[in-house]
């Protein structure tokens, strides 16, 4: 498979673009693999890539019921940041951000990672204190973070509603300059191409329909393309984790499936050069501008449980109100599309990368509304867990038993109710 370079672009320009190979193979499933990952989303593909690259495990298959990157990989708002504060999350998301910073070179695929800064507005002196605490914690543990006063903010983001009649007057902002956005499809394609180059079989249109068990071992997976036997299995199907969990006859999980919507406007000329987050009172809103010019924005989850991958109007109205409240210049902009993805909402808003009651089954789930930014580190640590059969200390508390230990990783302090972590 050819390596992409400026030279290959130039050369193919001369020969009529006839020198490009297909980006990954489309293999028939083999009868047996060392590791089978269920779910060819960002987390599953990244896991397969790091299993092969970091641990030399390359008899790996990634099974996908639809097409790769067609679930939440293609439905997020592409925001990348590491402004988490809880122990565990702090190190995990910073590791992920560091992987993002080199990902295009690592994968030889332009994931269009743009470190355009993530700006969280605050609207009261108390909120400024809370932001200062969070950002000081970040700076003390190896991340970047800044507090911007109103003048700095006005200079950098001139279009926000700074008027005296704003419902929530802006005091300033907490900023992570290294945060930003990336092209979501490119990340899926880059990891798929990278894994494929190491010999990983990516098998699309292959839905898992049953789990073959022998005692506390999984011996194989029944799929729409036949039985696939495996020595180890990893589930990376956030949104549908409970379904697979029931197939494996493992009962209940501290997870509910909810849906999260995102919206994009018609393309505009360059307007907003950062990711801006507005969250005060009942509002929860984030917005950035895509490279094609569309304003990409979203807000809360839809509040009620759903597997429908289909949004509802009240949240569209809610985020539209937030949009015009904070960026009044968007008032006449037309909405192009809005869509929904199904997310694993966990009981404390944090994820699971852990061993399970079955000896050779590993779980990667519970990404709530923030799985996109996590995907490189998620794959990194999940591959390490599967290869070495023990969790890295960073993810030691990303297990299913943490609630029994009283170790909730609850960034929001919202309590054990999945809908409150969106």
């Amino acid at each position: 498979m050819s390596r992409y370079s400026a030279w290959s672009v130039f050369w193919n320009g001369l020969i009529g673009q006839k020198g490009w190979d297909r980006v990954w193979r489309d293999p028939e499933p083999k009868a047996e693999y060392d590791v089978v990952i269920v779910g060819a989303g960002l987390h599953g593909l990244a896991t397969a890539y790091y299993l092969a690259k970091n641990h030399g495990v390359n008899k790996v298959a990634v099974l996908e019921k639809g097409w790769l990157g067609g679930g939440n990989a293609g439905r997020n708002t592409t925001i990348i940041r590491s402004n988490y504060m809880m122990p565990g999350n702090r190190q995990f998301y910073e590791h992920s951000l560091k992987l993002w910073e080199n990902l295009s070179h690592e994968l030889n695929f332009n994931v269009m990672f743009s470190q355009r800064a993530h700006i969280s507005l605050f609207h009261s002196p108390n909120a400024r204190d809370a932001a200062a605490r969070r950002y000081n914690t970040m700076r003390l543990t190896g991340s970047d973070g800044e507090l911007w006063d109103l003048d700095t903010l006005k200079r950098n983001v001139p279009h926000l509603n700074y008027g005296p009649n704003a419902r929530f007057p802006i005091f300033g902002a907490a900023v992570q300059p290294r945060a930003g956005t990336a092209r979501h499809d490119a990340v899926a394609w880059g990891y798929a191409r990278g894994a494929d180059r190491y010999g990983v079989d990516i098998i699309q249109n292959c839905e898992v329909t049953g789990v073959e068990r022998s005692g506390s071992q999984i011996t194989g997976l029944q799929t729409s393309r036949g039985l696939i036997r495996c020595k180890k299995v990893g589930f990376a199907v956030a949104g549908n984790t409970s379904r697979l969990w029931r197939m494996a006859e493992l009962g209940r999980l501290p997870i509910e499936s909810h849906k999260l919507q995102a919206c994009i406007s018609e393309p505009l000329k360059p307007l907003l050069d950062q990711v801006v987050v507005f969250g005060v009172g009942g509002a929860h809103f984030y917005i950035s501008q895509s490279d094609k010019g569309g304003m990409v924005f979203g807000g809360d989850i839809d509040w009620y449980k759903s597997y429908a991958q289909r949004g509802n109007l009240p949240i569209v109205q809610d985020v539209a109100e937030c949009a015009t409240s904070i960026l009044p210049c968007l008032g006449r902009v037309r909405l192009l599309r809005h869509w929904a993805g199904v997310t694993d909402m966990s009981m404390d808003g944090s994820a699971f990368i852990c061993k399970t009651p079955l000896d050779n089954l590993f779980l990667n789930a519970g990404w709530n509304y923030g799985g996109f930014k996590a995907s490189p580190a998620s794959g990194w640590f999940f591959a390490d867990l599967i290869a070495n059969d023990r969790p890295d200390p960073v993810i030691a508390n990303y297990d299913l038993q943490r609630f029994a230990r009283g170790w909730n990783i609850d960034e929001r302090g919202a309590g054990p109710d999945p809908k409150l972590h969106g």
Partner: protein
Amino acid sequence: MSGVPARIRNCTDDIGTMIRIPCPFCGVRDHSEFVYGSDASVEYPALDASAEAWLEAVFERENIDGVQFETWQHLHGCRMWIVVERDTTNHQIHSVRPAHEGIQRVLNGGANSVQEEKQ
């Protein structure tokens, strides 16, 4: 409100942009008037039950892909709590009843049933 039962079938319109919940007290309303409570199948154990029983009730969920019972509150209407039987895969609503059984009995039999109960 007349005709509520007949409209249950159409509570979710064809393109599914708005769930419509037939409140037993107010009639069919947009779901934006309601707030979602939680999974109504969860039964909390006695206060002196074991920590394991409480762990199970507070943290573990069935997370059904299909028809489930769940609680909603008509917050911006009559403020009553109701139990809604809804399909989580397509948002179809199959039944709605008041969460409090005593109130259901009043709806069924009128005020006399409450007096009979007191006797």
